[in-house]
């Protein structure tokens, strides 16, 4: 094994890890606001990629991406308003089944709209053969786009949740909904907003990664499981930790490809999920005490 190949695998791992981290952040936003794991999170990623590809046929790439993200946000809001908003303290089991139902529904709708074809956006800069070389390591510019946009998302979210009124209101709702409502915060709107935010982030991720990973009507489920693994690995609800956990999982996966057949890549990462759930459900970076207080 030479260093060059190893670093190439590392780059691939970092790319995929970042993608998983973005999906995990989508999970975390909704989880923080509602205590719900949205099993349909992967579908937002798929929708973002699919809509952008369709729009790109008649508008320039940046406009298509912006429009796709907006469309996904509207869909996210609609999903929350139609299915979630009016339920009064539903049980966890009920919420799990509803979000799974939504994910099937969205996926099947996508199948009827777009068919089974595999699609992809063009590379944002250059093409699939363009590489930027750092010494012996060659990186596709799209990888820089993915990691760059992930970094911007995390930075903006941190700013949003810590320094804006709206973000603080959302955090207040997640830590104590009744107290937040007494302070005049509309908790229901905050939940809708969390769906809008995570749908938008998911869709943006879907656009950025589609040149590398391609999108298909059923690519959401796989991403959702990886995203969830990362969210758990980092500690549910903690978005900064999700980035670290995403990188760990991505690198682990791509190192596994060196020793195992590629088809078993997913088996490895799901085994990591099971292992984490069994051994330390609060995640690597999460606190055990805090997770004991959460309701699952």
């Amino acid at each position, binding site marked *: 094994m030479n260093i060059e190949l190893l670093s190439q695998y590392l780059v691939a791992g970092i790319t995929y890890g970042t993608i998983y981290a973005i999906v995990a952040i989508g999970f975390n936003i909704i989880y923080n606001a509602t205590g719900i*794991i949205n*099993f349909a999170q992967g579908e937002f990623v798929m929708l973002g990629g699919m809509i952008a590809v369709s729009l790109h046929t008649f508008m320039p790439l940046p406009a298509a991406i912006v429009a796709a993200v907006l469309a996904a946000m509207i869909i996210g809001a609609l999903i929350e308003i139609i*299915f979630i908003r009016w*339920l009064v303290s*539903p*049980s*966890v*089991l*009920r919420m*799990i*089944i*509803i979000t*799974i*139902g*939504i*994910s*099937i*529904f969205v*996926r*099947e*709708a996508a*199948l*009827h709209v777009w068919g089974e074809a595999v699609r992809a956006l063009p590379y944002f800069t250059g093409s699939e053969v363009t590489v930027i070389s750092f010494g012996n390591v060659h990186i596709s510019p799209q990888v820089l786009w993915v990691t760059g946009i992930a970094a911007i998302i995390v930075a903006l979210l941190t700013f949003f949740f810590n320094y804006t009124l709206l973000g603080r209101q959302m955090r207040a709702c997640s830590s104590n909904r009744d107290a937040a409502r007494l302070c005049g915060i509309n908790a229901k709107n905050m939940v809708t907003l969390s769906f809008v935010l995570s749908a938008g982030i998911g869709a943006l991720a879907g656009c950025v990664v589609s040149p590398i990973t391609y999108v298909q009507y059923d690519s959401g*489920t796989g991403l959702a*499981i990886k995203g*969830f*693994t990362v969210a*758990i690995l980092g500690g549910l609800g903690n978005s900064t930790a999700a980035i670290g956990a995403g990188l760990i999982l991505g690198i682990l996966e791509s190192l596994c490809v060196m020793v195992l*057949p590629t*088809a*078993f890549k*997913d*088996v490895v990462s*799901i*085994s990591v*999920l*099971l292992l984490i*759930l*069994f051994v330390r*459900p609060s995640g690597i970076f999460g606190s055990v005490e805090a997770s004991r207080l959460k*309701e*699952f």
Partner: protein
Amino acid sequence: MLRSKFLPIIIFVIAIVSVQVLTGLTDKAQYLTQLTMTGYYSLVIIGLCMLIGYAGQISLGHAGFFAIGGYVSAFLTTYNLAPHKEKPLVSVLSKTGLLGSMQDLYGGDTMVVNPWLACIAAVAVTVLIAYIIGGPILKLKGHYLAMATLGFGTIVYKVVLATSFFGAADGLSDIPGFKVLPGLEVSGKPGLRVQNYYIAWGLVALGMLLLTNLIHSRVGRALRSIHSAEDAANAMGINTGRYKLNIFVLSAVFAALAGVFLTHYNGGIGPSEASIMKSVRYVAIVAIGGMANLWGALAMGFVLNFLSLRGYFGSYDDAIFGVILILIMLFAPEGLLRREVFQGLKKRLSGKKSAGGQQA
């Protein structure tokens, strides 16, 4: 009490027989194929209903157990052991008559495991896997439990999809029939249609008998107490962990047996049987039947599986189940066929005397 417990089983048996007679009289015998397959899927559903409805533990990985049963049996009954004739285990098996030998298309000798042994092996493997993963998985609750079982199902799916042993994406085919008893064979031969219909639904009837007995026993009461308040059940001295694990294994065995029989009936199995969508479908049917309602789940499983297998939903097949899930969970989380409806009926049927007694 006794009457009210066995009455549904009697009605069920009458219904099964009359459906068969009806298809015979109306010359629609081809329906029996889908009805037989429906029977096996119903076996998974009643097992899962025990787990979700009565013990309150969700599993999104039951298609995984179904596939483990089906694949183990399919593999053992098709893998040619003739080249390994000299190895100790193979020769012992062959001497005890547990291997069937036959000639393949080109006159070469093949030796495969007897379906009975394969079936027992399949169940044994399932029990082993269910115990190993059940222990840690059932410590989890809610979202974590759902995701863990979903993860387990996905692992099984990916493994069978990627293993050339198991035929990868094509699955295994040319699986021989399963001669359960002399004169009774589980296989898709057109002449055995009626027989197979009764084998499948006979198994379901047996399963229902077993499960209704279980529900009406000490174990059933313990399970219901776990569902409504696990901590309280624990405080009452119920070993909740053990009960949950046993019921998990039991429902996995139901799924695996269904897998074994359906595989022999169809003569093949493919990775789609292990897919997440199948697992979700089982949960959907349990949900629509009413979580803690074996008969409701069975009835809904019968209708929906049959319609789906007959292709009435066309390309909207999966979407239908997604929509059903959403609608049921939004508007009738207790299921369509609720217990109260049944109990009301039961009361009317069993007369005023027992209705006044209020023993149930």
